[in-house]
């Protein structure tokens, strides 16, 4: 109820999807932007709890943590970093295309972003599988080659799976949102007057990418600091 979308019927301004409780499209856009940024702040705090735990244990068990770098696949991790940076580029190009009312490019760049996102998850899956094979999954299947680090290295791998797992979960949600955007773009919803969802989901996508930018050096490169 009351959630009707009223297209404003004015000669110059068409296809503005103004919800009933906003006075102007500008107000609606401002609210959406502030809402998304506020949400991203909660996400920063959410990941912040894990980063804080990471900082504590890395400080306590530096030797064990550094030794795990040998079992991290830097090539795959680095590739994934590149893949995500590319996806951020295509995402922002999709936003630009939507702002320019270019439906074809919007859809093209959304699809490219989704391909990069899926590629990231596939590579991540390959890495997870390798960890399982090497008995590096904490709790269920963990046998560390260096016996004195067995317990403490397990904490690092626990944080690894938790942080990258949470990140991957955010990617999957992001892919769902991108699918939604693609359908909407196909239905010609977005134009120069109404592109808020593309921009908001773009913000979310960039945030998820930035999380990875922090995760990669913290988890993969501890032992590489000489």
């Amino acid at each position: 109820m009351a959630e009707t979308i009223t297209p404003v019927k004015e000669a110059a301004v068409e296809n503005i999807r103004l919800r009933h409780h906003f006075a102007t499209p500008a107000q609606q856009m401002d609210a959406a932007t502030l809402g998304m940024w506020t949400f991203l702040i909660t996400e920063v705090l959410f990941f912040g709890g894990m980063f804080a735990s990471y900082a504590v244990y890395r400080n306590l068990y530096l030797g064990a943590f550094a030794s795990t770098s040998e079992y991290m696949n830097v090539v795959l991790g680095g590739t994934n970093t590149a893949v995500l940076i590319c996806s951020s580029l295509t995402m922002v190009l999709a936003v630009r295309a939507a702002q320019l009312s270019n439906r074809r490019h919007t859809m093209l760049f959304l699809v490219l972003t989704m391909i990069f996102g899926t590629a990231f998850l596939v590579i991540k899956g390959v890495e997870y599988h390798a960890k399982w094979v090497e008995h590096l999954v904490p709790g269920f299947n963990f046998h560390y080659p260096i016996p004195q680090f067995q317990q403490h290295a397990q904490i690092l791998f626990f944080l690894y799976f938790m942080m990258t797992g949470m990140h991957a979960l955010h990617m999957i949600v992001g892919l769902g949102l991108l699918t939604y955007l693609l359908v909407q773009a196909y239905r010609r919803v977005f134009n120069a007057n109404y592109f808020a969802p593309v921009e908001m989901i773009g913000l979310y996508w960039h945030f998820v990418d930035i999380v990875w930018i922090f995760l990669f050096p913290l988890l993969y490169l501890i032992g590489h600091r000489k």
Partner: protein
Amino acid sequence: MATIAQGTPEIAAQEVNYLNVEHGWKSWLFTTDHKRIAILYLISITLMFFVGGFMAVLFRINLLEPEGIFSAETYNRLFSMHGIIMVFFFLVPSIPATLANFLIPIMVGAKDLAFPRVNLLSWYIYVIGAFLTMYAVIRGGVDTGWTFYAPYSSTYSNSYVLAAAFGVFTAGFSSILTGLNFIVTVHKMRAPGMSWSRLPLFVWSNYATGLIQVLGTPVLAIVLLLLAFERIAHVGIFDPNIGGDPILFQHLFWFYSHPAVYIMILPGMGVISEIVSCFSRKRVFGYNFVAFSSMAIAVLSFVVWGHHMFLTGQSVYTSIAFSFLSMMVAVPSAIKVFNWTATMYKGSVSFDTPMLYAFGFIGLFTIGGLTGLHLATLGTDIALHGTYFIVAHFHYVMVGGMVMAFMGGLHFWWPKMTGRMYPEAWSKFAALIVFIGFNLTFFPQFILGYMGMPRRYHAYPPEFQALNVLSTAGASILGIGYLIPMVYLIWSLKNGPKAGPNPWGAAGLEWQIQSPPTTFNFDETPIVTEEAYNYGPLEEVVG
């Protein structure tokens, strides 16, 4: 206070309002109207309040006898579930999700919150969290205390920790979404002329609450997740036997849960500002100070968590810093108390029911706040830590403060929410009963704690029995004090006298529209031309 183009509401006998505009359960469960969602929340949290209250009744009965009546295990589960339900499912959403959800859009002159569907989503998330927690209750409960301290909760407890922790985890997201909605609404949805310095103080305090909800709750979510993984996979995150750090749990937990204490009091302070101003017929003394003290409390709330950990062996310098910062919170809190008092000074004070609750709040909150200073002091905390002194202290703030404010606010805005007045004599009687029952319950606990009785034990030495019996007697009076309003408020829905748009002659946008309001609150967006609380002489007041 503002010019609103709207027909005179007195004529309409059967006017359309948000309650009668649509009927049927679908119109409620799929509503996006902030007022209807507030009612949904009100019903849900009231149910949870009585479940949590029932637990309290049971363990107070246990404490009638020094050796206890139930087993230690049952007792542990009772007080834990009482804490979890009351904190996460009543106090945190109490005023924000009900009164503020109903009032903030109206107070800022908007048709709805910025994200109406997110608002509905937050209620559904709350309900899912509540069901998960009730599942834990029905299966046998949790015995960790509401704080879920690790490694007991992650390794040793044989109770339903996971279900309860996931319930709290889920409910946290509902709290985040409510806070997010308020922040954006206050920033972006204000009517023309409604500047920040004209916002009612209730809006200010809920805005500050929103900041805490948004910044603190995600950390609670992550600590519960870590706890759950440690319990499932037995990886050492908090359990020192397997390489974990139990103090880390406390740091992360209190990083949310101390600010959460202010989630549980700031909205109440906002209610008191509204009530005191209305029933003193004066502008709130030092508006800017009261507004900014809310923000100061929100900021300080994030740098005091270490005072829960004075006895954990944290560095003494850390403790000194946390002790000092905790004392700082007393400053903005005291500003509020002094300014409410100054508002009443030379005002035309009347003693309607909401004002009785406000008086109760001011007195009890002051006691609760001042005893907090004993606990923030490093030396005295060593003696008082983990005793009934703590229990009494936070119940004076949470129950004597927040629940009093909630009851006061509920009576104050009841005519606006339902269009009906409640029975005046009964409500005053109930307010008195609550005040007496509350003090009888919790004041003896200060003495018990001072004498050294530790909290969370099902049995105690016989010399503490007299005070414990007194406390249990008080609790039964308090329980009746809460049941009476439950009865007469429901009765008033059908039988209460019709309330006009402004039964109190109060200032504020919400009193200038019909009671109950229409779905979109205002026919035309109001234009605000005056500051808040612009109370004129009494003659102008019309019922």
